[in-house]
């Protein structure tokens, strides 16, 4: 006689316990997505870093320079733009004085000439 099957062998078995990491497929998908995103960002930033010089070279030189200068903290943090007042009126006192020239005895022959411009 063949051996009898163990009791309950044909009975429905409870579902097998899934490994922890597969018990929540959505979580895994999120992790995979996050990993992929980080990788992509790293690759992208690396690409941008590598490609930046060529990109900058094609941009207008002064625009690139402006961007560089304006991001230097010491430049923008320590300098204060000077805004002058409105247009001067004829009654406004002069804000500066001219340092007078010092006279000398002119020679008979000039060294240079001022014809005007």
């Amino acid at each position, binding site marked *: 006689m063949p051996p009898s099957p163990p009791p309950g062998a044909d009975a429905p078995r409870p579902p097998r316990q899934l490994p922890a990491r597969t018990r929540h497929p959505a979580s895994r998908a999120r992790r995979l997505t996050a990993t992929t995103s980080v990788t992509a960002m790293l690759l992208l930033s690396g690409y941008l870093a590598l490609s930046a010089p060529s990109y900058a070279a094609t941009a207008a030189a002064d625009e690139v320079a402006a961007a560089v200068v304006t991001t230097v903290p010491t430049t923008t943090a320590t300098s*204060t*733009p000077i805004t002058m*007042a409105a247009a001067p009126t004829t009654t406004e006192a002069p804000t500066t004085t001219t340092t007078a020239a010092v006279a000398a005895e002119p020679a008979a022959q000039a060294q240079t*000439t001022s*014809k005007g411009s």
Partner: protein
Amino acid sequence: MTPAVHEIRLRAMGSDAHIIVVGGSPAHLEGARHRLADLERRWSRFLPESDVSRLNRHAGRAIPVAPDTVLLVERAVEAWRLTRGSFDPTVLGAVVGAGYDRSFEELIGRPGGHGADRRAHAEARHPSSWRPPTASACGAITWDRVLVTLPAGVGFDPGGIGKGLAADLVAGDVLSAGAAGVCVNVGGDVRVAGTGPDGGWTVAVEHPWAASPVALVGLTEGALATSTTLLRRWTVDGEGAHHVVDPATGRPAVTSLNLATVVAGEAWRAEVLATAVLLDGPDAALDTVGPRGAQALTVDLDGVVRATAGLSSFLGGTALPSLLTPPGVDDLLPVDGAPAPGARR
């Protein structure tokens, strides 16, 4: 022992330039020449990559420029205040509107344009395309150590102040490099400092109507500049124009003077004050330069020569001519090749 004297004459900033070094070497001259060329590269509005061209192209935005250019902008705004608006670096639109949209060498060479206007010097015509400027935008220019921002839609024209300031800067450099004395003349904006060839320095003031200098000005230290409506003239479509724009009208100035010379401590101040005197007229000259310790010489349209009282101390007792004779029609040169309207042959 007499100190060595070295000098060069060259073209710079669209003008004749002359540099004299006393007690130095040819290396000082070469350094001065390079410095002048560098300033022109930064300040010319006819070079597309100059600081000034970039500022004009990007008006409304903060643009990084060389420290010398920041100084130029700072001095130009100061000059605007010093002259109560008679000097205004934001009249570029009017200057271009008057036809001065390229270097003077190119201007006189283009079809329909000539540097020498054969008509009477007092004639002033204004093409209908010229428009008076709105209120000056000078007060809205901002800057810091490395950035300059022009108001949107505003153009900056260094004009004469660039030549004067260049003379000041180059003279300072040459002295700092060890020379005993220096004279830098850029288009008639003259700065002297240190020992002159004869102890002091002597600068001749010339007028196109006079065969000999109107004055010989003696300087130990300081500057002299001349502004005139008789040079840098041109015609556009048959209309006469000159480069001295009146900020009040936005048009080439209609003034009772045809030449103004100012003696001051620095060339940039002398230049802008000379422009202001030219615009303000002989009666206002004393008020314009007097409180600022400067001296002025003027020649009006009839050839009458006037000067502030203090100028005599720079003339060594020599009297000024009281009257220069305007040239007759027969004295005028043909347009082609003429150095200036009203110039004597």
